[in-house]
């Protein structure tokens, strides 16, 4: 026997004898003969040497050397080596969900610390062990509010990541939910329009900070306005920005959700990422997913355990707050290690460095005639307007080795000339200078 099956032929015969059958096929007699697979058209296996060659060849067919100035909710941040070391510990990554506390204090405590850091970051009361990604976390947040106040309308600002909005709409196709998306005024939230739409059928208002175009706002007044009408306030945030920016809690959000990729997860072509959720205490029992709590063991020692499980599918079945079972635990572990390494001061500095780099590029851009920077406060991402289709410009930049931003036209028909550019702490002065020069050439001044 080969590969990862340790049995010898002899052992197999011994085992069949114990079972009392002659051959392995006899173990499959419950499957009616006429249903059995006739053709199983899978290529022959490989040895490890052939395998390495094959995967290496596939790896080479990607332009991973490209320098990233594109964000759009998914950012090219630096990942300290210690994050990989911890997440590649077998004891973490080859364990299952921590159902048996005596055999999983490691995972449980790490999640408990993660929950703590997410609440600290957001200024809200509670968090959970993670959800799948930013978009699914947003849907779960909306579901909490709909369930709580029995209303069916949700107002979503179009400054919210379009991928998240698409997931929310998809999840709702067979539900009595009315999703109303509010057009932006250029790249800015239309507060007046939103206020008009908030009525007594509205369950929740969703806005994002910084928004998809990089604009930073303070939504506190809007949230207070919404809450006076018993409408829940949901804020989509960007974790790294909270090193310096006003927190969801300070803005009086009821629920905050985020794509957690920026906290120590590689871009990795779309995943695995991390769905973050944090809630005000009034929503704790409506929150989806695993939650770890502290308690004591028989001898009074501190211990951690999955708690409030009466919300979950394995107990409540169709009445559960969500269907989620496996989540993104290892990604949450990476996030908690990332946040520990940066820590109180490092994380603030990380945010500042992002801001600094983006401001530096903005300043350089000020001498390019055919380019206009959208006004307003930004963090590490901003939008420029140019005189031609940004899609073509980005294509040309890619040929020159730069992923030069996200053309807004991919998601906004009327914004084809807008390019959304992000500059993280990873971009060196050299890279920024070169990028500026090349873009200036392409835009001809």
């Amino acid at each position, binding site marked *: 026997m080969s590969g990862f099956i340790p049995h010898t032929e002899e052992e197999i015969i011994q085992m069949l004898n114990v079972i009392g059958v002659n051959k392995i096929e006899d173990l499959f007699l419950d499957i009616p003969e006429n249903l059995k697979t006739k053709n199983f058209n899978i290529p022959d296996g490989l040895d490890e040497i052939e395998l390495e060659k094959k995967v290496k060849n596939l790896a080479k067919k990607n332009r991973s050397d490209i320098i990233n100035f594109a964000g759009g909710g998914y950012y090219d941040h630096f990942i*300290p080596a210690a994050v990989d070391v911890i997440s590649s510990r077998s004891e973490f990554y080859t364990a299952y969900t921590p159902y*048996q506390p005596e055999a999983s204090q490691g995972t449980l405590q790490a999640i408990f610390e993660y929950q703590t850091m997410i609440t600290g970051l957001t200024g809200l009361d*509670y968090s959970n062990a993670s959800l799948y990604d930013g978009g699914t976390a947003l849907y779960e947040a909306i579901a909490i509010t709909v369930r709580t106040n029995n209303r069916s309308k949700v107002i979503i600002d179009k400054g919210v990541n379009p991928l998240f909005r698409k997931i929310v709409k998809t999840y709702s196709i067979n539900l009595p939910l009315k999703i109303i998306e509010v057009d932006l005024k250029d790249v800015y939230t239309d507060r007046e329009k939103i206020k008009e739409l908030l009525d007594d059928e509205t369950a929740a208002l969703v806005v994002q900070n910084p928004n998809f175009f990089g604009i930073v706002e303070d939504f506190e007044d809007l949230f207070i306005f919404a809450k006076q009408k018993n409408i829940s306030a949901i804020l989509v945030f960007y974790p790294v920005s909270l090193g310096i920016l006003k927190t969801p809690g300070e803005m009086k959000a009821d629920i905050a959700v985020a794509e957690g990729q920026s906290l120590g997860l590689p871009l*990795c072509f779309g995943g695995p990422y991390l769905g973050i959720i944090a809630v005000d205490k009034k929503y704790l029992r409506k929150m989806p997913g695993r939650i770890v709590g502290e308690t004591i063991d028989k001898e009074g020692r501190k211990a951690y355990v999955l708690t409030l499980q009466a919300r979950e599918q394995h107990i409540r079945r169709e009445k559960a707050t969500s269907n989620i079972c*496996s989540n993104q635990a290892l990604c949450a572990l990476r996030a908690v290690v990332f946040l520990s*390494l940066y820590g109180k001061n*490092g994380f603030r500095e990380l945010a500042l460095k992002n801001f600094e780099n983006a401001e530096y590029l903005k300043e350089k851009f000020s001498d390019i005639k055919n380019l206009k920077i959208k006004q307003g406060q930004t963090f590490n991402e901003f939008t420029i307007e140019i005189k031609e289709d940004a899609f073509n410009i980005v294509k040309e930049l890619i040929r020159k080795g730069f992923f030069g931003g996200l053309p807004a036209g991919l998601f906004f028909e009327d914004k084809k000339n807008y390019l959304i550019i992000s500059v993280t702490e990873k971009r060196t002065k050299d890279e920024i200078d070169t990028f500026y020069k090349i873009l200036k050439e392409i835009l001809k001044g």
Partner: protein
Amino acid sequence: MKTIFENSIKGRKGVISGEVNNDLIKKIDEKFLRKEELSLPEVSELDVIRHYINLSKLNFSVDTEFYPLGSCTMKYNPKVCEKLASREEFLNLHPFLSYIDEDSVQGVLEIIYEISRLLCEITGMKKITTQPYAGAHGELTGVLLMAAYHKAKGNNKKYIIIPDSAHGTNPASAAMGGYSIISIPVDKDGNMDVNILKEKINEEVAGIMMTVPSTLGLFEKNIKEIIELAHKYDALMYYDGANLNAILGKLKPGEIGFDIIHINLHKTFSTPHGGGGPGSGVVGVSGKIMDFLPVPEVIKENEKFKLNFNIKNSIGSVASFYGNFQVLLKAFIYIILLGKKGLIKVSEVAVLNANYILAKIKSYYDVPYNRICMHEFVLSARKQLKNGVHAIDIAKYLIDNKIHPPTVYFPLVVEEAIMIEPTETESKQTLDEFIDIMIKIAEISEKEPEKIKQAPLKTPILRVDEAKAARELKLKCDI
């Protein structure tokens, strides 16, 4: 152990970062800034490493212990899959690159295309979406696909039929997708009770969700009849593929009439479970559901891989991009490594291992359905309960013997359930040790039941007060 916050010393930092200009903050209007202090720990890199490495030592894991957790397929995760899936060429790729320049991402698009084809061949389905992030997410995707199918046909459907032995995610997913549930009991042999099914099924049933082999580890004998019955009412057949590890190369759900399937790649295809994820719950569909799949899909045209955003009646998207790409990649590597013969062997030996344990211990425990099992089986601790020993006590005693417990109290239809899934990667020697301990437990339960009920005694913590955890909620560290 102390929390990471308790290790905090003011002024410490675990990263080396360049100079930052603190004055820059003045460029931002006060009203946009955080006032509340950041409550993160202040620790060195060594503090962090030591803390989390020491925490890891408190875990049981496949790499350190036998882990026969039923329904979860905790097989060994080949290291070559981990290594190759962590190459920089994959890790550094921005997913949005694919929206603009497919030429830059041909390798990863090819991987998504190829694993989809392989999984279609394995399951007998026509098309795959890789978006779902986990099994339950796949179920929800499947339910949304059902809804889209029925809407397109003008069908008025309200219910989804689910056997009462099903995993909790099945009814939860059906409800999340907007349906009510009709529950069907199992009969005395552990199959879905077809007579009750016949009574309950009606024109308003959107679909039937089945787990095959069932959560009792048994092959559903009436499967063909159930499928025909469902299709008579234009109800779709959903296959919960959590237990696919039993049937590789033996049965293709698509070939026998299933319309939708999810596969837990983190079970059958050996991607590690990560202490609770990330997994992957890719969904496969038959021809009649193809037009509703999420976008974008990866297609091949003139030897080039491309994205197609135009699926006629697509439900939309259930994930940001292509699902947990790195998990797909690990599963892809696993499949091409094992190949046809290797995959067939997986199921054969998984079933062999389960039946071997069952044969050796069945006279010591109550076996609710005494049949040849598939890749796992369910015992009941009913016999032991007469002496006051519950399934949970047996689980805890196993921990003291350095074995991760089987799944207990699931499926709900078996009293004091103990669900054992050894997987194919465990040797006869490991199984024999487990068998010995299980027999010993049965014997001790007769004579000294207290010994079992006290367990565990050798763990970093003893049994925990779960009621206190739920009553006096403490969900974050003291800072």
